[in-house]
């Protein structure tokens, strides 16, 4: 996308260059490059096993890449530990929520807020965003529904005041109405200047909220562009690998 390429250093939050990741002997991600700017929603789509979650986990520091670089606001962070990346403003809402079951709703959010940077989100602000939370803040998270748990996971990441928010499979296992409710909050998050990296298997949902789309097929980039630029046929082809997609439109 042209505005992404032309973004000023202040606008560019994340730059992933030629990233290759292995799981043992298995090649999971093969030479991927992309950028993420402020207030941008980049959707990473792809079928199961395409390497989407591995990519996010590597950016978060939970997995070490084989080669390539990850740059955050001009500084390479490829060798930083996960907690240092979080303190730099890179947060991941992991697949499966990964809440702390022995902690209450509020305690879960407090853990996220402990090393928070200055910014618009604090516990009161996320309670405003998710109005149902204050009444249930003393409940153990295991007593919440799947959708509520997903909201807590997002709130826990938000209170750290991230600059880059990565959300992995937000809709997994949730009813459509619950997914819709969760996605309603996305524009308000993006309005704060946060760049969102969204991994989503529900392509229609991803296209509805994304400013750019990056499709992975067996670990390789199969298609990139804005939702308006990409036809449904091209996306389907890139997603399932049924035909050669048109050349990627992103340049670095």
């Amino acid at each position, binding site marked *: 996308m042209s505005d992404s390429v032309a973004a000023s250093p202040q606008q560019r939050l994340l730059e992933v260059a030629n990233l290759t990741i292995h799981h043992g002997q298995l090649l999971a991600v093969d030479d991927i490059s992309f950028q993420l700017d402020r207030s941008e929603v980049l959707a990473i789509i792809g079928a199961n096993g395409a390497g989407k979650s591995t990519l996010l986990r590597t950016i*978060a*520091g*939970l997995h070490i890449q084989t080669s390539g670089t990850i740059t955050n606001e001009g500084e390479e962070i490829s060798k930083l*530990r*996960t*907690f240092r990346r*979080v*303190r730099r403003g890179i*947060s*991941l809402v*992991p697949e499966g929520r*990964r*809440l*702390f*079951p*022995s*902690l209450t709703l509020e*305690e*879960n959010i*407090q*853990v*996220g807020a*402990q*090393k*928070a940077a200055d910014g618009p989100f604090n516990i009161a602000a996320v309670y405003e965003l998710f109005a149902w939370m204050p009444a249930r803040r003393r409940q153990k998270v295991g007593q919440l529904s799947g959708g509520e748990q997903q909201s807590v996971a997002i709130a*826990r*990441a938000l209170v*750290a005041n991230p600059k880059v928010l990565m959300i992995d499979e937000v809709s997994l296992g949730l009813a459509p109405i619950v997914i819709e409710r969760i996605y309603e909050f996305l524009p308000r998050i993006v309005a704060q200047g946060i760049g969102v990296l969204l991994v989503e298997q529900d392509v229609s949902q991803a296209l509805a909220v994304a400013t750019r789309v990056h499709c992975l097929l067996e670990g390789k980039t199969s298609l990139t562009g804005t939702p308006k630029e990409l036809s449904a046929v091209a996306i389907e082809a890139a997603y399932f690998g049924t035909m050669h997609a048109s050349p990627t439109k992103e340049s670095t």
Partner: protein
Amino acid sequence: MIWLNVVVSGVLLGGFYALFACGLSLMFGVMKIINLAHGDMAVVAGYTAVFLVPKFHLPEVWSFLVVVPVFALLGYVVQRTLLQKSIDRDPFTTLLVTFGLSVVIENLLLEIYTANAQSINIGSLIAKSFALNSTIYVSYLSLTVLIVSIVVLGALQLFLSKTSTGRQIRAVSDDREAAQLCGTNYRHIFGIASALAFATVALAGIAYGMYSQLTPTAGGVYLLFAFETVVIGGIGSLWGTLVGGILLGISQQFGAHFNPQYQVLAGNILFLVVLAIRPQGLFGKKVAMA
């Protein structure tokens, strides 16, 4: 009345076992490691009180003022240097490392202090007691250890539930990776948990040195009692550790009432029964800490 005496003695002994075991429970609850050198660390704390503390012109009864902070620091350092490296590999490596540590400690103590038994001199306090009735006497030392045990467990519980660091410890215990995603340096949190565990085991070691005679190889037996206490009470549950210690103490006193040789056996039988009926222990949860 005899049985009441057995129960009172068991409760008092249980307080000591709980103090001994809470560090083991904490380390397992947070780091999922079984520290086989736990008993030996207690013995080292006892020896430190006997041999090093008098050099600071401090009465041995007040030795905990020096030994506990030193052991807390030692716990942090041992975790960050020796244990963390093994945790990064696999649980079996950690077990081997702590076993190795145990062997090294026992041999060093034998080499430096010989096999002669030592004890912490607390003067006439060792023999002082008060009467509950005409047949039941309660030792001031045993009662003090029980009270210390309850205070320590209560303070740990408060620390874990009310403080920011305590929340992080529980979060790391639940899900280490998710805690990192919240900006928590889990290695530092592991260090803090080890510091707390070593501090409590230092208190237990000093209590042991006051109660009984310290020998370089005594750690193994007390590791077994601590392990039984934790399993009976429930792994990762602090109050469960107190109950586990008390039940172990009562069962041992019950066995000893029939024959002194049955003391340890009775405790072992209770341990096996609990393992068979309720493997997670009386108060244990599958994941939760405390």
